[in-house]
């Protein structure tokens, strides 16, 4: 019987803790247990034997930290570990799990470890372990969902062994990086893990509370490996507060709650396992039921499609948006992020992400935007692209289980998309068109939906992961189009198939489109529509959604509706108008909204360049001077800068592109440095003084900076570094710049910088603060 058959036929037992046992046998603090595989193999084998004798079916190899970051002799260590475990198993009907622990580094975007490096490092260990004869891969003690994903992908890409995954939840039932069980289950099941669950940090009592979260969402066998309670110090030694008797009693409850693969973690001993086996082996065995849920997830939570209608925000899309296109061309990621943040505030549950523009590298931009969105917004994302390369790249680094937009009934489309859904996990929007176009009848569209679902099942993709979009077409050109679409929604809903629509197409070519959209949306929801891509800034659409939920019992006590309705009432207190009505007054006082309004008025009478040169810049200078004289503080300086920015935005439309730009400045935080608050302040001020800023972000390589300088022709570069450890990267960047772009000047700043230090590493200027950066730019450009 292989391990996959074993776990489907009865309760399966894992082993318990290794650390406590090995320490009692002389493992020193700071000594790596993995090294004992070579230096004291007998002890390792003895430890495994003790657990086998206690009744464990799965023995975990002593390879928790065996990765390239810690060991040079990886092959030797892992091979020895698997051999030791296999040797211990001789004479037992047991399985060897290759133990894979976390890498101890944080992945991008929060940390600096690239996702693909993590995959590579895990793959390296897994290949060795699989080659040495492990029976399964156990990825355990995962604190971070993205790292868990990297490990599972590595396992899937480098061997054919079953993959078990356990993560560390805390008392709040979340991982330290934020994911709840539902989110982890969605992602791990999508990736094809064979068993999933929890280990470490908590004792069995606390885990007993988490198990129901798993039985509710998981269709996959559930693993529970608790610590022996909580640690405390006794005569300088670490002891745990739950003995074998109590531990095994609670493990009985855990089995009754639905776990079928159980064992222990820190502090548990062979005795804990022996008692657990004795007490639980006769308990009824029940695998989790197949849930067939349609779920997508982010790095914190899951969104289920099929209860309340789900809103997918449509605003991250360049179609028909000049400002958005400009942001894509100029790599202005902040603009795109703000579109996401604003939609999040409006209450959308999923964000559509479309960054396709002919003149940019869509795959690269998609990855950049998704990574950036996932560092600030916790909503699940819908990856919207027709380019399979962009789709795959985005799916790889996506932290969670994504919604994919889209697949069609065309063979070519299904061939490209379904392997991606299968490999990375995801729910996919299926549009009802094929080689013959879009059927004119509801039946025709349902037929294509059935074809897509049947084809998906050949890839092992369930009906629950297909969300059919029966396509809303302009009612102005075909008066039956709305009826056909609505009928298709109703029929699909009746067949238990989830549906989605891009609602606003329906009103194309009509006046007062928002009203038409809102009524159509309401009708579609009434016919069972599960989700819709809409503009959440449209009050009509949000009204339709809130009213529908209130009227159909999906909004208990109409709580959300009431809150929404109240937010619509005009607030009694109009924002009080503060005194300055002149533009320079607004800027000096840092009044953002007013500065915009006043500037909008002003362009009706004054040439835009005159506003900039004789009002905005002098006002900024006044504030800047105050800052230099320590009469104005940094927050005030920034408030003025923001007010000036609003004014700029207002008059931008009236200026021929490029006329107001003074010169280009490339700014970046150097390689290895992830702190960018200072650089961002410099950016804001330089922008306000009319410079064209190319902001390369943080942790930027010298090569990228030099390449950007060369391709843009910028004559000034601003570099920031926070710590002594990153100053060498700054020096390297300056050297390369002086060599490759000798006429470009470099100004530097940052916490560790001094005038002397700056001169030593060859900088042309040192800035103590953001104003000095402006002064240097003014002198130079």
């Amino acid at each position: 019987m292989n391990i996959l058959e074993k776990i489907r036929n009865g309760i399966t037992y894992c082993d318990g803790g290794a650390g406590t046992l090995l320490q009692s046998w002389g493992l020193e603090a700071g000594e790596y247990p993995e090294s004992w595989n070579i230096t004291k193999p007998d002890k390792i084998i003895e430890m495994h034997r003790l657990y086998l004798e206690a009744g464990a079916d799965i023995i975990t190899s002593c390879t928790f930290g065996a990765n390239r970051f810690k060991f040079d002799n990886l092959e030797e260590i892992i091979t020895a570990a698997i051999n030791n475990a296999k040797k211990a198993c001789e004479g037992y009907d047991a399985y060897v799990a290759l133990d894979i622990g976390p890498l101890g580094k944080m992945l991008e975007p929060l940390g600096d470890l690239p996702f693909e490096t993590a995959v590579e490092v895990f793959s390296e260990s897994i290949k060795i372990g699989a080659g040495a004869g492990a029976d399964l891969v156990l990825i355990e003690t995962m604190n971070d969902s993205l790292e868990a994903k990297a490990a599972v992908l590595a396992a899937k890409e480098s061997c054919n062994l079953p993959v078990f995954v356990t993560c560390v939840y805390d008392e709040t039932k979340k991982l330290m990086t934020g994911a709840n069980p539902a989110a982890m289950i969605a992602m791990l099941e999508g990736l094809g893990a064979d068993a999933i669950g929890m280990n470490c940090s908590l004792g069995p009592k606390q885990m007993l509370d988490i198990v129901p979260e798993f039985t509710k969402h998981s269709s996959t066998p559930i693993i529970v490996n608790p610590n022996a309670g909580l640690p405390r110090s006794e005569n300088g030694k670490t002891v745990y507060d739950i003995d074998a008797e109590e531990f095994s009693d609670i493990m009985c409850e855990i089995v009754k709650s639905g776990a079928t693969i159980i064992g222990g973690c820190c502090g548990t001993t062979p005795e804990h396992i022996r008692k657990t086996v004795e007490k639980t082996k006769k308990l009824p065995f029940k695998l989790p039921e197949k849930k067939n849920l349609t779920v997508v997830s982010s790095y914190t939570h899951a969104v289920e499609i099929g209860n309340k209608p789900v809103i997918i925000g449509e605003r991250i899309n360049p179609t028909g948006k000049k400002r958005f296109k400009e942001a894509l061309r100029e790599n202005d990621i902040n603009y795109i992020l703000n579109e996401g943040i604003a939609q999040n505030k409006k209450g959308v549950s999923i964000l559509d992400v479309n960054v396709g523009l002919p003149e940019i590298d869509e795959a690269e931009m998609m990855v950049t935007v998704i990574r950036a969105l996932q560092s600030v917004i916790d909503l699940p994302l819908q990856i919207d692209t027709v380019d399979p390369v962009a789709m795959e790249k985005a799916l790889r680094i996506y932290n969670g289980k994504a919604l994919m937009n889209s697949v069609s009934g065309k063979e070519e489309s299904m061939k490209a998309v379904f392997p991606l859904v299968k490999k990375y996990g995801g729910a996919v929007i299926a549009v009802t068109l094929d080689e013959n176009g879009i059927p004119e009848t509801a039946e025709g569209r349902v037929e294509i939906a059935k074809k897509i679902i049947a084809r998906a099942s050949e890839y092992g993709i369930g009906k629950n992961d297909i969300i059919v979009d029966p396509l809303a077409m302009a009612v102005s050109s075909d008066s039956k189009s709305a009826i056909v679409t609505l009928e298709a929604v109703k029929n699909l809903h009746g067949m238990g198939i989830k549906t989605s629509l891009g609602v606003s197409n329906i009103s194309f070519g009509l006046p007062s489109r928002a009203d038409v959209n809102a009524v159509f949306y309401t009708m579609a929801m009434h016919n069972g529509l599960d989700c819709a891509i809409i503009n959440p800034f449209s009050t009509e659409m949000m009204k339709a959604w809130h009213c529908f939920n209130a009227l159909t019992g999906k909004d208990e006590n109409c709580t959300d509706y009431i809150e929404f309705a109240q937010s619509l009432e005009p607030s009694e207190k109009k924002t009080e108008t503060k005194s300055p009505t002149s533009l320079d007054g607004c800027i000096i006082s840092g009044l953002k909204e007013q500065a915009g309004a006043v500037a909008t008025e002003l362009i009706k009478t004054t040439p835009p360049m005159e506003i900039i040169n004789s009002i905005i810049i002098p006002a900024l200078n006044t504030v800047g001077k105050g800052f230099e004289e320590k009469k104005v503080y940094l927050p005030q300086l920034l408030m003025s800068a923001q007010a000036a920015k609003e004014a700029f935005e207002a008059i931008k439309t009236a200026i021929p592109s490029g006329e107001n730009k003074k010169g280009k400045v490339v700014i970046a935080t150097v390689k290895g440095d992830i702190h960018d608050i200072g650089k961002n302040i410099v950016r804001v001020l330089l922008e306000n003084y009319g410079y064209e800023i190319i902001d390369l972000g943080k942790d930027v390589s010298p090569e990228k900076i030099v390449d950007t300088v060369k391709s843009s022709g910028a004559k000034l570069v601003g570099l920031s570094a926070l710590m002594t450890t990153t100053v060498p990267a700054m020096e390297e960047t300056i050297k390369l710049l002086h060599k490759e772009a000798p006429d470009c000047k470099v100004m530097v700043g940052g916490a560790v910088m001094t005038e002397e230090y700056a001169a030593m590493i060859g900088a042309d200027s040192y800035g103590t603060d953001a104003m000095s950066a402006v002064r240097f730019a003014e002198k130079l450009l």
Partner: protein
Amino acid sequence: MIETIKSAAAEITIDPKEVTVYLGYYSANGIEDKTINEAISEFESNADYRVCFAKVPVTITGDSADLGFMQVESKSLCKNLDGCDEAYILAATTGISSQRLIEKNSVISPIKGIVTDCVGSAAIEAFCDKINLSLSDNPDFLRPRFSPGYGDLCIDCQIKIVEFLCANKNIGLSLTESLMMIPKKSVTAIIGIGKEKNKCKGSGCMTCKSENCPYR
């Protein structure tokens, strides 16, 4: 043994005055209280305060300090630990969700970003101060917190501290290639356990020799 504690946000008081110091105000006049107070309450709902620490033996020989798990050359650390037989090694953080908040607010507006960042700095210090009080029955006997990078204490010893405390597993703290801490608002420190009341008034960063620091 390594102890791990998780503190509720309500237990940590972030002083708006401290925030203004980090914001570069030279006096607390004319500050926009509302912005700071809003940032504090937003930070509090995202903070996930965790700390892990362990007691280690201290042996000083010349300019070399032996802390059991590591040996470091540092005049300033030896001066700080002079007369101590033991010390606490500590790693504390405000959690990854607070880092996401700072990044989000920086996207929304630079001022919101910088205020939230400064709230984070004040928060981690406040948290460490609170931990200091609970470490020992005689908190007055504890020496000022001494962190890698202070004085001549090399920043590399950060690696050993994080590894020794299993800070990644215990509190979710990790280091980048250039030894920056993730989550960003984190502290690692060595705290000497003195035998008498600590006479040194300077705490935290004030013991540092850097003359270039914007906060002094």
